[in-house]
């Protein structure tokens, strides 16, 4: 087994890790109780899975075809810039339209800040 093959195996393992993380992220979307905890699974795991998959594809095409695809690197960059902002916006919109938290949640410091009138009533 020469060096090129070993690097190709590394790419294969990267893509495998990416798919496993993405499956776990999907499990998280099903199992977790509310919007906010689901957004944890969605933002973090999907970012890492996309990163490893694209990186694996990049390495594979580089070693196998000798083709350096800058578009894959740009894709990684764009996912990194946009995924946390998307998660933040979805959480924020959910909180502002008063989606309740899951049962058994701890204290909620944001409520008195965003909806002061309800806080005084309770």
């Amino acid at each position, binding site marked *: 087994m020469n060096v090129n093959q070993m690097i190709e195996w590394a790419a294969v393992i990267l893509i495998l890790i990416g798919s496993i*993380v993405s499956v*776990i*992220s999907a499990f998280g979307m099903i199992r977790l109780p509310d919007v906010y905890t689901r*957004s*944890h*699974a969605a933002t973090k795991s999907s970012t890492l899975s996309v990163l490893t998959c694209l990186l694996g594809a990049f390495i594979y095409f580089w070693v196998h075809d000798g083709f350096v695809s800058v578009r894959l690197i740009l894709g990684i960059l764009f996912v990194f810039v946009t995924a946390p902002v998307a998660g*933040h916006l979805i959480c924020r919109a959910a909180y502002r339209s008063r989606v309740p938290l899951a049962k058994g949640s701890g204290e909620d410091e944001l409520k008195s*800040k965003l909806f002061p009138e309800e806080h005084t009533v309770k």
Partner: protein
Amino acid sequence: MAFQMILNFVLAFVWMFLSSNYTATGFIIGFIMGILLLILMRRFFKSRLYVYRLWALLNLTLLFFKELILANVQVLKVVLKPKLDMQPAFFAYPTVLTQDWEITLLSSLITLTPGTVVVHVSDDAKTLYVHAIDINDVDEAIASIRDSFEKAILEVSRS
């Protein structure tokens, strides 16, 4: 920082013209000599040498990748646990960062690190409201992690 980088590029091009060597190698040699000149002339600049800032940026990137992997391991643990017994909560985090891009960077980093998602930035941009997936033991650990992030961002933005 931008001024020093442009100066360094101009020096590299001047070196290419002087040695009439219009290749990537000539550019790199000129760039390295430009860095040496900038180091010699550093007391005439108002801000730090931009090399330090690039170094801080590299440190921040490495820290970020480490935290991203740790975050995924933690989510994996939470999701695959047979009994869902985590206790989510919101908490407020006062930040010392002032500029908009710093706060945006900090919230993106917090969102992609273990157990935290930024939900609201207060109107005066002094407090971040963060949703934590498990409030029990994470609070202090998260504080230390974010102190390291905040410190790293300050290190990048320090003039």
